[in-house]
């Protein structure tokens, strides 16, 4: 008997039909299916980030400007 044949002999089949059915129905009731998909929308994210940076710079500059007066 070869190495592969030994593995075949030791390869017992395991079937748990009720666990399979119950687990499937529990998973299908999971909140995952009611949630919105989380997707990174780079087209929206990058302009928002740029705008935020401009606003931060603007407020920082105005603070400096008012301090120097």
């Amino acid at each position, binding site marked *: 008997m070869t190495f592969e044949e030994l593995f075949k002999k030791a390869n017992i089949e395991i079937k748990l039909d009720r666990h399979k059915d119950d687990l499937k129905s529990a998973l299908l009731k999971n909140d995952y299916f009611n949630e919105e998909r*989380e997707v990174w929308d780079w087209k929206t994210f990058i302009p928002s980030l740029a705008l935020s940076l401009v606003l931060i710079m603007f407020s920082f500059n105005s603070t400096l400007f008012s301090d120097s007066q």
Partner: protein
Amino acid sequence: MDNDKTKELVSRAQNKDKEAFAELFDLYYDKVLSYVFRRTLDVDYSKDITSNVFLKVLKNLDRFEWRSGPFSFTAWIFRIAGNEINQYFRFQNRYKLGLTIDLGDDSKAVKEIEKKIDSDQHLMILNKAIRQLKPVYQEIINLRYFEYLSYEEISEVLKKNESTVRVYSKRAREDLEKILKQDAFNFLEKYDF
């Protein structure tokens, strides 16, 4: 099932399609359960670990991307299963369940499986020998000889390059043959490795 069909199912499941997820579940449940069972040889823990694997698959499905290669979804699921099995060995009695509801009472099937385990000398001897290997060798032997995964797929599961997996697989097999010849000599006299 071909890779394009799996890709389509994954994509639909990521868009919250229950039927697509159910189909993926049917495709992978037996594979995952068998893989976990062979590593633990405990039916109850195999049920718990398999439940956790699919819960993690569901919770992380949005973040899954086809990056590494053609078999990456299979590899991803087996990687999750491998991590869960390691958690089980690390925590044993403190291993936490993601689903707290009672799932399927297969007591008749469980008894039959337990009877088979006790009477199957091949399985007992092989399993005892495999457990003496390094953890990475154990995973390779299980994935290669029980799950029939290709070296390419195993390399994706373990995140190692294919040539490393081939070398490890050769060493794992040599080590296993040595252990079997030493420990199970009487039983395995008739085998010719």
